[in-house]
């Protein structure tokens, strides 16, 4: 059986759903962050697969950009988490329900 575009898309979709499930269910900020990365990667996979099956490199360029943005995002996000932890001594979303204090 040949591997077609749908195979990749299904893998990407399942991965995305897993990430989403993690984001909603988990309560540790860091794990939520990891799940976000997972979702981004799922999108990347879909883009690369599309690029391959459409014979067009633009999708891969997009992935390149996404990776860069994700790297910047991770850096800023983790810095925020560290700052938050310093102040509140927790990385648990249920303890972080108000903006002030």
């Amino acid at each position, binding site marked *: 059986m*040949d*591997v*077609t*575009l*749908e195979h*990749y*898309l*299904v*893998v990407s*979709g*399942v*991965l*995305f*759903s*897993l*990430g*989403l*499930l*993690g984001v*909603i*269910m*988990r*309560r*540790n900020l*860091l*794990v939520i962050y990891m799940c976000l*990365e*997972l979702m981004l*990667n799922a999108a*990347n*996979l879909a883009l*690369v*697969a599309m*690029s*391959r*099956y*459409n*014979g*067009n*490199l*633009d999708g*891969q*360029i997009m992935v*390149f*950009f996404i*990776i860069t*943005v*994700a*790297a*910047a*995002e*991770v*850096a*800023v996000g983790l*810095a925020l*988490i*560290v*700052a938050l932890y310093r102040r509140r001594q927790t*990385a648990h979303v*249920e303890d972080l329900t108000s903006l002030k204090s």
Partner: protein
Amino acid sequence: MQAALFYFFAALTLVCGALIILNRNPINSAMFLVLSIASMAGLFVLLHAFFLAAVQVLVYAGAVMVLFLFVIMLLDLKEEDRRKFNLFGIITGVISVAAIAYISFAAIRSGSASVSRTASDIEGGTLPLGKLLFTNYLLPFEILSVLLLVAMVGVILLSKKDLK
């Protein structure tokens, strides 16, 4: 051969993805994320996106994961104590995942007729990508470098001790 490799990498990616969210210890989650990403690099290779596979490993499995682990160590996060059962999270999570999954699979199924079933012979090597980046996508590329700079400055500011 191709099919076998695909199934292997796909399964590895998905299993590791599932383990990320199932694991109670953040360090373990991070480790599974590395595995998942690395196996996705394998999928990239299968798709002839060689440059991206390398970048994936370098940036994600290298830099990003090191950051994650570093922060985990810094915060000294222990294994989560067992809190009260997160019924709300599970219900909402399942509902939204079901909705998204349903829509995306419906979209895949309805769109499959119009996509070519055979892979093109396109090669995502360094040369063609580089050419594209420095011609058609020069401006976004430069803007992206500015973005990285901004992120760097922001992080430095955020990580100062007396954050006001």
